[in-house]
């Protein structure tokens, strides 16, 4: 087997490395989709609590705030998915808008239903970390070279 010279492989690797770097920047938008998925998984537990309280008439905890909280969390999922779609055209603005939407939503939760602030805190941290990574990669793509 005659193998091409090492210089040829080197130039091939350089071209491939440039493409891989570009792909990493592009993947900032994917963090938005991951954040939407984690947010969706987070809303399943309040839905589960609400269904239990309605179906089996559990009265051991207050659930009056749950419908509004569930609606807000589902709306946030929809917003993330829409911003993920918009991120094809403006990744930095889309990811920044998603981070702002997340912070505004949880500020409103803290204001109106303070008892729900610490619910699912681990998944909230995960979503926040995903959004920060999305903004970071969006910024790397957005900033002037």
């Amino acid at each position, binding site marked *: *087997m005659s193998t*091409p010279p090492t210089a040829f492989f080197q130039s*091939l690797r350089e071209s491939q490395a440039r*493409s*891989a770097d*570009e792909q990493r920047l*592009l993947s900032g938008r994917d963090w938005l989709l991951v954040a939407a998925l984690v947010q969706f998984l987070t809303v399943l537990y309040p839905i589960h609590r609400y269904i239990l309280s309605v179906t089996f008439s559990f009265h051991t905890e207050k659930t009056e705030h749950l419908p509004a909280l569930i609606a807000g969390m589902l709306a946030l999922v929809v917003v993330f998915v829409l911003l993920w779609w918009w991120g094809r055209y403006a990744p930095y603005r889309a990811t920044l808008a998603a981070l702002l939407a997340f912070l505004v939503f949880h500020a409103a939760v803290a204001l109106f239903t303070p008892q729900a602030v610490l619910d699912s805190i681990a998944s909230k941290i995960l979503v926040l970390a995903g959004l920060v990574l999305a903004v970071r990669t969006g910024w790397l793509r957005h900033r002037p070279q």
Partner: protein
Amino acid sequence: MTPALQTVPPDSTPDAGPVHRSGPLVTLFALMATLTALFATGLCLQYDRPALIAPALLLFGLPALWWWWCAAWQPGRSCATLPRSLRVLTGALGFDLICTCRGVAPTIFFHPDKATAGADLCLLVFLENYTSRQRLVEVRAGPHPGLGLAGVQTVRLHLAAGQAAVYRWPLRPLPSLAAGSHDLPVVLRVQRPQGMGQWLPGSRRHPYNIWHTRFAVPFTLEASDKKALGHPLPEAAYLSLASISEKEPRLDVLARLVDPA
């Protein structure tokens, strides 16, 4: 649908391994579904709702049975010894892969990635199947009017079990394309016409294993006074680089592929 291109030379490695998904994740799903079915049944009994027991068992018990079958029964039946993956892309070629798509390692780039207007560019699609069953890879490039791709153009490529291959797609920038950095959007989707298979020993399992992935393949167009070349574009080619039925990869085809002259 256009038929899938076969490599030159064709790879006749037969499929092997399980048809359906198995592994630790499926075992976890099976366990969760079983516990949920038991929990739902217990809840219905405790709160005297016997009518809900059957729907709960159907909803959670049937998926649990299916996942247990996939996780435990299938791998036990396919105990054939599989050959080792040759790992051409990450090994001999030393590429930096950022994901796998349904067990296929992809990387797409221009080589060379700098050209002048009118000179030919060569888009290279490197693929390696890390699994024991064949895959169909759909490559959708464009739109990019500056490269003569007014719409999306699709190519379907066949990959035998464990095979590594490269597809050369010649493109020519139009004289109207401005000098500077550009990206060609490429979407890559992988289908499993004969089922899942299993990861070959020695293959590189990437944690980011997805159904389809998007690439923005960069290239730089340098300013030039030269006019567009008149010769026709070279033919596209799909060549096999390695097969698990053979001992060594055929890397000598690479030089001819990039520079046919």
